[in-house]
């Protein structure tokens, strides 16, 4: 294998090189299996070619020496004149370094880290050392692409993304964070980001970082100030370490959950309201049972009276839910109650309803509905709607003041021959009108059993409905 690599200008006297140095040099070059080391003349023709070069590039020593070294460059680089440029630079500056794809004999490519050095003696050419760095290069490339993908992801999702140490010390804020909070990169680093957190939430926010490294996760809900309008909006922040190899390197997201929280709160309130209404309704039914029981002389009369009152209650409930628990008009409430007993009476001319629109809130509608039920029931049984010559006129006026509306409802039956004892019988109805309405609605009421029929006046003062 002698002569495989001949140091250049072996015969030329050299200040420090002796026979021992030559041998050492030869051994080093020959044993450098992982390095392609070859020399070339000023025109780029190979003059020596070591074992490493054979291994790396596939040309045997005999094939390489005497031929141009340009073949190890890719076609593109050759067309671009890269081999000449490299020699020119090495000739001028003594050395030329580069990293690029190079080509083997079989056409495959490898990523090479190369160094070309000019030999000292005039026109002695160059020596070039190449190392195969393909694996490292591909790994770097993968890492670079992965980082790029992370940045792309982190800067394009709606969440605010950050990187931090495991104690909350931030090392990178995403552009969305900067956009949302108005804090710059420098202001956000370290613990500067805390400035955007609501002052009341800063303590819990920091406390949640304590022990995050043991739990392997950071979780916190806190308010974050939005630069555009100064509003503090609820965010959910989660962070995790990037991986087991980097326990101190964390990445996290902050998601706006403000609207979600408002919805949850609204749902909670609705649930509470529903719960309240249902149970209250049952409690009202309970009072109807005990009141009806007290006024009944037999189970038959209890059953009849109770089921009528239950129906009246359910009718009012249906009307209220039909208008989505908003206001219900007084006339609709009266009509529903009269129709439930005998619809024909409404068109017979014996019943007149006269008054302007008057919207009743749900609670008032329920109380008044039950009272009207008692009045109608009495009229159907003993009064104006039971007797040939009877008549019923319901009139109401509404007086609108600044924040209030006062409605005065007059129920007037006429042409009735009042049977004896009716006034005493009307226990529950009388209690509803004379006690419940004043208590619940602050109403002023009066109920009288005149010889020609019942008179009832109810004056209710309600807050004027506000929009929405």
């Amino acid at each position, binding site marked *: 294998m002698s002569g495989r690599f001949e140091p250049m200008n072996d015969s030329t006297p050299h200040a420090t090189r002796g026979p021992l140095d030559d041998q050492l040099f030869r051994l080093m070059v020959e044993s450098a299996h992982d390095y392609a080391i070859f020399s070339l003349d000023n025109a780029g023709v190979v003059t020596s070619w070591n074992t490493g070069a054979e291994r790396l590039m596939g040309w045997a020593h005999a094939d390489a020496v005497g031929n141009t070294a340009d073949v190890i460059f890719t076609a593109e680089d050759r067309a671009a004149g890269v081999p000449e440029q490299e020699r020119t630079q090495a000739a001028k500056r003594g050395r030329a370094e580069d990293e690029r794809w190079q080509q083997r004999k079989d056409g495959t490519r490898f990523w090479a880290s190369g160094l070309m050095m000019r030999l000292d003696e005039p026109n002695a050419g160059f020596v070039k050392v190449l190392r195969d760095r393909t694996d490292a290069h591909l790994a770097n490339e993968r890492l670079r692409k992965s980082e790029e993908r992370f940045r792309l992801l982190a800067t394009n999702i709606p969440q605010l993304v950050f990187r931090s140490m495991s104690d909350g010390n931030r090392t990178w804020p995403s552009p969305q964070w900067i956009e949302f909070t108005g804090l710059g990169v420098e202001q956000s680093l370290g613990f500067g980001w805390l400035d955007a957190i609501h002052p009341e939430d800063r303590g819990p926010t920091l406390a949640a970082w304590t022990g995050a490294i043991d739990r392997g996760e950071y979780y916190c809900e806190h308010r974050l100030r939005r630069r555009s309008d100064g509003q503090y909006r609820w965010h959910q922040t989660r962070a995790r370490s990037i991986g087991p190899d980097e326990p101190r390197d964390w990445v996290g997201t902050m998601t706006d959950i403000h609207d979600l929280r408002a919805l949850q709160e609204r749902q909670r309130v609705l649930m*509470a309201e529903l719960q*309240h209404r249902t149970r209250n309704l049952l409690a009202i039914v309970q009072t*109807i049972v005990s009141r009806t029981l007290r006024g009944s002389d037999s189970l038959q009369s209890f059953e009849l009276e109770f089921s009528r009152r239950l129906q009246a209650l359910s009718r009012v409930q249906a009307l209220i839910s039909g208008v989505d628990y908003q206001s219900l008009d007084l006339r609709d409430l009266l009509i529903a109650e009269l129709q439930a007993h005998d619809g024909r009476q409404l068109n017979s001319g014996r019943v007149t309803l006269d008054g302007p629109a008057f919207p009743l809130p749900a609670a008032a509608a329920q109380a008044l509905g039950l009272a009207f039920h008692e009045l109608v029931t009495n009229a159907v049984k003993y009064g104006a709607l039971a007797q040939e010559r009877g008549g019923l006129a319901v009139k109401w006026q509404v007086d609108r003041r600044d924040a209030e509306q006062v409605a005065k409802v007059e129920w007037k039956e006429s042409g009735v021959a009042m049977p004896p004892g009716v006034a005493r019988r009307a226990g529950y109805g009388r209690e509803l009108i004379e006690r419940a309405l004043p208590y619940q609605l602050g109403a002023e009421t009066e109920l009288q059993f005149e010889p020609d029929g019942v008179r009832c006046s109810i004056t209710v003062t309600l807050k004027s409905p506000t929009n929405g």
Partner: protein
Amino acid sequence: MADLADRRILLVEDEYMIAADLASFLERHGASIVGPFKSVASALAALDGEAIDAAVLDINLGGERVYPVADALISRNVPIVFATGYDELLMDRPYLGLPRCSKPIDKAALLQILQRTLNPPGSSS
């Protein structure tokens, strides 16, 4: 059976019939009723100058919550029983530990709670 004789019980409930039912039930057991009141303002106004031994409170009073009344009573060391349509989950946290009857009220259970609160075991009366 220990009774509520001479006990003054504050009743806060916005539904008349329910309030009237509870009041007459408690009165039958010897209590005298302070109220009933249907709003926070009227109940708070009655607290001053009234000796009150215990209170039965509805929570939702036509949309407003009874809690200010509860706070005033707690600061006066007056025992409270909530008589409410609210479930535990929907009550404000500070009041969760207090005695509570769900609507519709089981009056016997309410009576028991009141008696236990007013005559704790070991008390001399």
